[in-house]
């Protein structure tokens, strides 16, 4: 289910790096590559609550598929959300809601992306799925 190709690509990409620093550098580069969001979209409604850094997230549906736009003031956080955007973008809403995101365990950043780390990962996934649910009904 879900965007298997993108998930597998990410797993392969991260597999190239042995040590944490390289993995983080890759995550940081994903963050830097994710286009910034327009300032006028950085409104209260689009904020993901529960992150130490600010995270903004919007979504729209095109031909039955969901497209996300996201940004953060912290670059590692932006890298994390870039991962999710890569995996979810252009997917049907139903697939997004049902994706269990097992790829996160496989990119070797499990400890770093654990829900205890107050990185907001759980909150981001929840908000993305919530958008998908709403767009699915609309």
């Amino acid at each position, binding site marked *: 289910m879900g965007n298997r190709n993108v998930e597998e690509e990410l797993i392969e990409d991260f597999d190239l790096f042995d040590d944490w620093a390289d993995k*983080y550098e890759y995550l940081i580069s994903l963050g830097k590559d994710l286009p910034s969001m327009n300032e006028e979209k950085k409104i209260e409604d689009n904020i993901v609550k529960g992150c*130490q850094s*600010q995270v903004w997230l919007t979504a729209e549906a095109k031909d039955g598929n969901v497209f996300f736009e996201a940004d953060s*003031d912290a670059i590692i*956080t932006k890298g994390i959300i870039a991962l999710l955007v890569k995996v979810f973008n252009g997917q049907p809403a139903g697939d997004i809601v049902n994706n269990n995101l097992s790829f996160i365990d496989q990119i070797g950043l499990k400890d*770093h992306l654990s829900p205890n*780390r107050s990185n907001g990962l759980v909150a981001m996934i929840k908000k993305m799925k919530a958008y998908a649910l709403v767009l699915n009904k609309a």
Partner: protein
Amino acid sequence: MSTILDIEKIRSQFPTLHKTVNGKPLIYFDNGATSQTPQCVIDRLKTYYEDENSNIHRGVHTLSQEATAAYEDSRRKLQEYLNASREEEVLFTKGTTDAINLVANGFSRSILKSGDEILISSMEHHSNIVPWQMACDYTGAILRVIPINDEGEILFEEYQKLLSTKTKLVAITHVSNTLGTINPIKEMIHAAHQINIPVLIDGAQSIPHMKVDVQELDCEFYAFSGHKMFGPTGIGVLYGKYEWLEQLPPYQGGGDMIKNVSFERTTYNDLPHKFEAGTPNIAGGIGLGAAVDYLNTLDWKNIQIHENLLLDYATEHINNIDGIQIIGQAQRKAGVLSFVHQKAHHYDLGTLLDQLGVAVRTGHHCTEPLMHRFNVTGTTRASFALYNTKEEIDIFIDALKRALKMLL
């Protein structure tokens, strides 16, 4: 600088300091949040559970009497340590937050009226803001805030202007957990006393860095937490002048805080028990006594010299890094170095520093209004304790440079 204290000996007493995290020796610079625990305190907790565990103040049996004696002995140790005039002036609480809530609750129910004022400063921790806001909501009293300058120092003249006959209490931190500022509390207490206003001091961040004498300060209340002064978690102290504690109504009802109970009428117990309803954190109280024993073995004068050298050394090296601005540049500081970087977010810095074995705190440090004052969303905070070293600061500075290189 390490010649004035035998740091190796001090460090050898703290097991956690010898841990590795993420494959690197731990450098623990989050002492402002919680300090590490020396072996003697850990041993004391263990002995309590192995040898003395029982309820206090209630049993006629030997075990209960031994536990009661140990718990009350801790209270006396704290009394002596703080130089309180009576042991009944030392109340055990869950911590600083609980201690401040106790006073705020008592003031709400017995003293505050609509239009009265409570005076706090711009650099207070949420636990010295929110209880007063709740008290104000409940009574119609008004919260007033003493402004600070860009260095992070209280504007004393503004403070004096804010003091009035409407002021019912001044509640102020001794040392700022975010800025490190040591406030001139003695002068502030003196000024408040000129018009008979009582003063509560939040001592959470001062107790681990300096000797405090409550009679010399002459404050009405002094609150602090065990877990920031090398003691256990879940235990803390409210020191209160006897006549003030007498005057305030009890905070919580239950066992231990009563003399007699009938459905018609209950009479309350004497101090300190009036404020200690229910079975307390007995192990924690006894462990806190062991922490006081530990503090009593220390050479405070040299510890302060050592800590000041650490802070100066770290400040100098941080200042040499491009793009960094220190938040909190008061003349008198203790233990805390907070900073922001022009481009790197504190969350990113904290995450990468952790990977490099350095534990710091990032975010608003429970001082959101202070963040607004300095127009930042958060800072990275390194906070030091007596067992930290210059070598650790060197590693921290290198780690910080490496993190910045990865991020920028």
